[in-house]
């Protein structure tokens, strides 16, 4: 109930403390003098913010457009949502009931503008019983009796207004706004306009609204896995028919399951090509759920579910897929990649890409097979530079009639080996790798790979590579780092294994 400042002051007070006459902002010493048995706890703004974020997330069951109104409020944009809950009054009651279930002591107001609702919710009267519904057009009448503090102005402006004898919003509303902007700054006039609906104002939702979504609300919390699956399937059908109407396909989907006791379980899947097949989408979700396992704990049950398409792309209907065997096979493999990605995550299902460099460590890399369609995912390693679906090919073609000059397995980092060479620049005669000495039967080299001096930080020193084969027939790619000189012996490393 208390907070450390320059002096200790009360940051917040609970209902009983308020009844005893304690107010936030009062110094702790004063409060202790008035109430000797006061229990004061240090304020935890981070924990408060986390709680508010959890509340806001839980409120997404009512509408996808939820904004934080820090430090102690949440704003919901319910445009077009009220009919799902049986009208505005019923929705307001549902929100209040939900807050009580979360054991949050909340006050709610429903108005035409976010600022009006914000002001009204903080200044409810006793007969409002913690919630207030303002009919369309009634905003100004409802706001007029509120004190000017409801606008959330800074101290100077408040002080000026009180000295001018302006106490309620009604006093302000009657006067031309030009006066306020010249005397107290533009802030006062703008906030007043927003509260009274003279200026159009939207909230900035926590998540960008999805271009396409479907949702279900249940009278009873749903516990069984089968019921969850059936709900997801019917949502998938809805979403896919919506997509079909827009002649689009989705590249990233998210299912949000809302827990009855607050909290949300989110399941996200991505695909390699635009998808609008409900059965295929459902398979992806099943793989993902199976992989998540315990994470999808229903707790006391889910009471709402929503499926949204996060990334939309035009869907090309491919006639040739019916006739061409190759196209059908490619579609088959793409679907497999999608399923595997849903199961293992995008950074585990990979394709190879080449870089235009001769540094063996960098010339090839693996990137997610599903290339970055989802901007919000952010987990793809190395996908930023290779977002295009058809990367340019830098693969070096082998010389005909030559044995392989690059190994199939590459160690990164290279493994240190001990080498005995007959002459300083001769290929190794014997080397020890993994505690076994291996005698070299055949060797070729050196192939000198110099660092790329044009880079800002060249990665390596000059390396002399040898292909060597031991007596058993195993083939290795070994390099010597640096040159022989007076001070230091060069190091030898095993970089790869040939087939």
């Amino acid at each position: 109930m208390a907070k450390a400042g320059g002096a200790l002051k009360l940051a917040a007070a609970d209902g009983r403390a308020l009844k005893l006459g304690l107010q936030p902002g009062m110094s702790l010493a004063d409060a202790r003098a008035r109430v000797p048995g006061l229990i004061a706890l240090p304020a935890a703004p981070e924990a408060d913010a986390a709680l508010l974020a959890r509340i806001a997330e839980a409120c997404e069951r009512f509408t996808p457009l939820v904004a934080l109104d820090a430090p102690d409020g949440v704003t919901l944009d319910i445009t077009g949502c009220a009919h799902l809950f049986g009208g505005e009054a019923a929705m307001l009651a549902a929100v209040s009931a939900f807050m009580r279930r979360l054991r949050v002591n909340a006050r709610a107001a429903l108005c035409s503008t976010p600022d009006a609702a914000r002001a009204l919710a903080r200044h409810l009267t006793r007969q409002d019983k913690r919630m207030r519904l303002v009919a369309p057009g009634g905003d100004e009448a409802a706001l007029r009796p509120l004190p000017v503090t409801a606008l959330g102005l800074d101290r100077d402006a408040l002080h000026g207004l009180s000295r001018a004898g302006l106490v309620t919003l009604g006093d302000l509303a009657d006067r031309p706004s030009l006066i306020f902007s010249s005397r107290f700054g533009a802030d006062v006039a703008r906030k007043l306009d927003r509260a009274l609906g003279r200026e159009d104002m939207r909230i900035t939702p926590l998540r960008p609204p999805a271009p396409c979504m479907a949702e279900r609300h249940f009278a009873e919390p749903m516990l069984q896995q089968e019921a969850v699956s059936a709900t997801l399937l019917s949502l998938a059908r809805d979403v896919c028919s919506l997509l079909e109407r827009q002649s689009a396909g989705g590249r990233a989907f998210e299912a949000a399951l809302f827990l009855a006791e607050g909290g949300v379980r989110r399941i996200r899947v991505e695909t390699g090509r635009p998808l609008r097949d409900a059965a295929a989408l459902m398979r992806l979700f099943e793989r993902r759920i199976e992989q998540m396992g315990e994470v999808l704990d229903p707790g006391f049950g889910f009471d709402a579910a929503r499926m949204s398409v996060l990334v939309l792309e035009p869907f090309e209907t491919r006639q040739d897929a019916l006739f061409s065997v190759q196209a059908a096979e490619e579609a088959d493999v793409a679907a497999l990649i999608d399923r595997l990605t849903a199961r293992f995550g995008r950074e585990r299902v990979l394709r190879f890409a080449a870089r235009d460099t001769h540094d063996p460590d960098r010339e090839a890399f693996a990137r997610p097979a599903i290339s970055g369609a989802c901007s919000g995912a952010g987990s793809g390693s190395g996908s930023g530079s290779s977002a295009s679906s058809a990367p340019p090919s830098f693969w070096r073609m082998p010389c005909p009639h030559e044995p392989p000059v690059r190994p199939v397995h590459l160690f990164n980092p290279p493994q240190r080996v001990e080498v005995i060479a007959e002459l300083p620049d001769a290929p190794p005669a014997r080397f020890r790798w993994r505690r076994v000495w291996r005698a070299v039967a055949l060797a070729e080299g050196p192939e000198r790979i110099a660092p790329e001096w044009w880079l800002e930080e060249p990665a390596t020193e000059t390396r002399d590579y040898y292909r060597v084969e031991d007596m058993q027939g195993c083939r290795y790619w070994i390099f010597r780092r640096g040159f022989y000189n007076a001070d230091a012996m060069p190091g030898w490393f095993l970089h790869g294994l040939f087939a």
Partner: protein
Amino acid sequence: MSGSMPASQQFFAPAGGTAAAQAALARLREQVARAGAASGRHPAAHAAEVHHPALPGRLAAGALHEMFAASGADAAAACGFAALSAMIAAQGRAILWVRQTMIEAEFGLIHPPGLIELGLDPARVALVRVRDAGEALKAADEAVRCGGLGALIVDLHGNPAKLDLTATRRLSLGAAQSGVTAFLTRSAGEPAPNAAATRWRVQAAPSRALEARAPGPPAFGLTLLRDRTGGMQRHWQVEWNRDETRFELLAGCAEAGTAGKPAPHPPAAANGTRAGAFAALSEPVAALSFDRPDQAAGGIRRRTG
């Protein structure tokens, strides 16, 4: 239907109510036969056998093949042999490669330029990195049922308990239904009974030295440990010819134990029973250039020292 049953079964059939019982039995037999036919090879997909022209033993398409690395240092050889077999089996279609991250730590990452050097286009390969054998088998189970895939390679480390008769049988059945050829490569593992169609031990073999004692093309020592279609343990030494996309026999013999004796003639098309299967193939079969020139004129000059 009952008339076609062997006499012994009629003899052992119960005396009372035989007609109804036998009719039911016949129906069941018919169902079993139909199910067996249905689980056979995918009809349209792959008529050709995967084969290594130089090898009398063959790697059937739409089946599970197991390949053991003979030792730790031979893991790359086993991996390369699996990749080449998969490339032949895939016939231009996609290849899915499922790898345990453990293997990457132990034997290195797949190096796509090395695949190109073997003749396999990395663009056709998709890689799935899995943590353990359970995940690997799940991924393999999913992939082996995807008819659009050409071949599947699963790299497993050690002797995972999950790789039992049931798991391998699932893979075999899936492969037979979809026509996907599956290769299970095992590093640091011991052969155990399972449902694989063939089981091989792969090791690196000394290559034919090129000019200036340079290592030659990849050579493999192959031992066919087990073949479901029968036959005894056999050993070959083969060399991969990238330019002609086939294996060539360096040395081979009918039985293990006499390995290393060079075979004067590869037994490729000599077997008359498989002539029809060979004729259906588009790739060269019989012309084995055993003593081909080491390099083309104007090739890379060997240098050493």
